[in-house]
């Protein structure tokens, strides 16, 4: 990492750390939500961006994480913080079990299979009424204290979750595993004749990705204090997550973070005024990304922003 990058990243984090003392409760909530999506996008980028496996249904781990916290706090009276390791664990175990069959698929097939997995898990949870409350949902214990204190608690919890995802993703990009994943993304056959145990590494990547997404789910559940299958297994979150990763730049450490912040803040500033065409704007944005910045903002604007780059991309990527 260059010194300049380290300094600007440190400044960014410090700003985020002091911000709750300066802004209103509304903006604290917006930022908490942004950190949530950043955690999901950065975590999912490990399998989607680094490894090249479009895990469209990665939100499944988010939902499961949410339910792990939900069930453990309500049925087993565990403290919220103590449930988080279990959220990560649930993601890891589930990704390993699912990865063995599903990671044999590639491209669209894999993407569709993950969506299937997500829907299946959602149905299962919907029907495990005794444990999860089924369609009635699950009411988590509400955190005690001043509202302001609670806002800040979740703000920092989500911020930490995001930093955890970033750290995970940064470390992976620097170690041997990261190189293996890159090789798998470019050419899996070639990677395996380099002596890379591709099934193992793919599963590993998915498990790590799932752990970050699972923790985000756990925090989300406690934050919302009420969950049902439809609020945590949300298809549009998958779309959003994907748009963030693509917008920022798949396969880069900071790209998904950049994508999450851009998209969430845009959504807050503009979409909240045009709630009816919310989906249309998202769709248009994805088309825009594919046409003008297919490599994501991070790669495209490394050397500074320019419209010329957008036009060059449009010419080179025209169908």
């Amino acid at each position, binding site marked *: 990492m260059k010194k300049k990058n380290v300094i600007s990243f440190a400044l960014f984090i410090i700003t985020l750390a002091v911000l709750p003392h300066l802004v209103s409760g509304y903006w604290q909530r917006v930022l908490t939500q942004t950190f949530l999506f950043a955690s999901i996008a950065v975590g999912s980028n490990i399998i989607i961006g680094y490894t090249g496996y479009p895990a469209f249904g990665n939100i499944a781990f988010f939902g499961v994480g949410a339910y792990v916290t939900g069930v453990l706090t309500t049925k087993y009276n565990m403290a919220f913080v103590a449930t988080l390791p279990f959220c990560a664990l649930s993601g890891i175990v589930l990704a390993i079990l699912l990865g063995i069959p599903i990671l044999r698929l590639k491209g669209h097939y894999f993407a569709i299979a993950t969506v299937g997995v997500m829907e299946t898990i959602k149905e299962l949870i919907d029907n495990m009424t005794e444990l999860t409350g089924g369609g009635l949902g699950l009411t988590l214990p509400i955190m005690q204290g001043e509202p302001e204190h609670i806002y800040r608690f979740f703000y920092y919890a989500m911020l930490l979750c995001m930093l955890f995802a970033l750290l995970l993703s940064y470390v992976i990009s620097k170690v*041997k595993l990261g*190189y*293996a994943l*890159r*090789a798998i993304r*470019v*050419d899996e*056959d*070639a*990677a*395996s*004749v*380099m*002596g*890379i*145990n*591709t*099934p193992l590494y793919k599963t590993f990547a998915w498990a790590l990705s799932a752990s970050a997404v699972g923790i985000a789910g756990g925090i989300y559940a406690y934050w919302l204090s009420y969950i049902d299958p439809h609020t945590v297994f949300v298809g549009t979150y998958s779309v959003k997550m994907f748009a963030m990763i693509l917008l920022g730049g798949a396969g880069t450490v900071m790209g998904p973070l950049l994508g999450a912040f851009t998209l969430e803040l845009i959504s807050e500033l503009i979409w909240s005024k045009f709630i009816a065409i919310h989906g249309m704007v998202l769709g248009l944005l994805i088309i825009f990304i594919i046409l003008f910045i297919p490599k994501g903002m991070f790669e495209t604007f490394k050397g500074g922003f320019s419209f010329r780059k957008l036009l060059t991309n449009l010419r080179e990527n025209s169908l």
Partner: protein
Amino acid sequence: MALLEIKNLNAGYGDLRVLRDVSMEVNEGEIVAFLGSNGAGKSTFMRTIVGLNRAWSGDVIMNGKRLTNSPSEKIIKSGIGIVPEGRRLFAGMTVTENLEMGAYCNRKDIRRRMDSIFQSFPRLYERKDHLAGDLSGGEQQMCAIGRALMSEPKILLIDEFSLGLAPTVVDSLTKVVQDINRQGVSILIVEQDVQMVLEMSSRAYVMEVGAITISGNSKDLIDNPKIKEAYLGM
């Protein structure tokens, strides 16, 4: 004793049987040519050896160890290096990174190995920070051979050695391959330029519709009327 021994190998795709009881061997220090027209099953054969294709039956034995249908990484670790058909470089990575990937299993004194590859291919050294996808065909082939050598294999499988390369490039690559062979690496080479490959190899096998039909010393095969007919159009 044979270094790499293939016994009655059968393999295919779906219901289609491509390899029919293929048996062959490569001894230590040999260059063996593997000939066959398009669709004969040469690439399937190569892929099956390194575990990218499932073998239906038969044995792949390396150094006395049976490796049939082992995971690729295990096969590579046993000392087989492959230059796959179409080179299959990691396009978004630099030449240096591609070579590093080749040493994935064994990263001890990676620098020394890389230096020796740059010595064999000075051109690659000039291009070491370029993306592999931006190289010319000849340079890509050098990079692919270099990458395969980074795992210090005992035997190097080269699929479609001269495909799409200018004759002068092929000549210089041939010299390098012979050098590598002199350093003790056995070579199994798939090639369409029969004349050239028979001159550089000591033995050869000819595959037709999935079965080996002719085999013998390369010198004898150069004059074999069937080969002349099939490949040289004479």
